[in-house]
């Protein structure tokens, strides 16, 4: 598989991450496009074994810099917190979970997504998000606790096949 083919294979995952954090399809794809351009310019120097981490790190930086004031204001920016501007950011059969996910902070969403969806290790997530491993673990714990606290055993009911 060529580096370009590997890159192409990762586009859906990059789009999904971008949508999860921005809550906006158009903006998400713009940022993925920019990430791909950067990747193409650096294709010869990206080590193949860390291409996924490299791509997610670039994309994470692009998304984070969209927040007004940069890193210091990530947690309180409109981009970092609050409901998505597009209503169908993910599976619409999961409105409760979707709202709860989007109510998380920027860091919590990023860490949870990278662990749960991309199955990165906490060390890899620390590289991508530029957090310490300790802060990655803390954000992950907080995020999981918040989603586990969905009312009326939402998750358990779903597990039982009611939804």
């Amino acid at each position, binding site marked *: 598989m060529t580096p370009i083919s590997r890159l192409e294979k990762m586009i859906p995952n990059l789009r999904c991450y971008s949508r999860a954090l921005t809550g906006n399809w158009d903006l998400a794809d713009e940022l993925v496009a920019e990430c*791909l351009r950067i990747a193409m310019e650096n294709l010869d120097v990206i080590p193949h074994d860390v291409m996924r981490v490299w791509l997610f790190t670039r994309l994470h930086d692009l998304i984070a810099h969209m927040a007004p004031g940069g890193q210091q204001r990530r947690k309180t920016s409109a981009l970092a917190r609050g409901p998505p501007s597009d209503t169908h950011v993910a*599976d619409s059969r999961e409105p409760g979970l979707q709202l709860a996910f989007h109510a998380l902070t920027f860091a919590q969403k990023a860490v*949870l997504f990278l662990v749960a969806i991309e199955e990165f290790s*906490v060390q890899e997530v620390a590289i991508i998000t530029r957090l310490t491993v300790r802060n990655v*673990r803390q954000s992950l714990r907080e995020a*999981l606790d918040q*989603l586990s606290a969905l009312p009326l055993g939402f*998750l358990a009911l779903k*597990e039982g096949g009611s939804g």
Partner: protein
Amino acid sequence: MSEQAPGISRQQLDDYVRGKLDAASSGRVEAYLADNPDVAVQIQQDCRVQKRLREMFAPVLSDPIPERLLDILRSVRSRVSRSGKP
């Protein structure tokens, strides 16, 4: 997940959840979880949340890729083939 048995690290618990441990290490973690039901319940709950998230995002992952994103790759492909690089 605030306490670990001797020989069971936080990292091993993480790796267990991610299914990255070999059979012997998994067995040790499972023995630890059997002795620590609170941790076992939390891990089970964490796994359940993560599974629901994977299901929630699955449709996004299977969305068709827009042409304009593929065009970015194609433009470089054609440039590479013109320059004679493999």
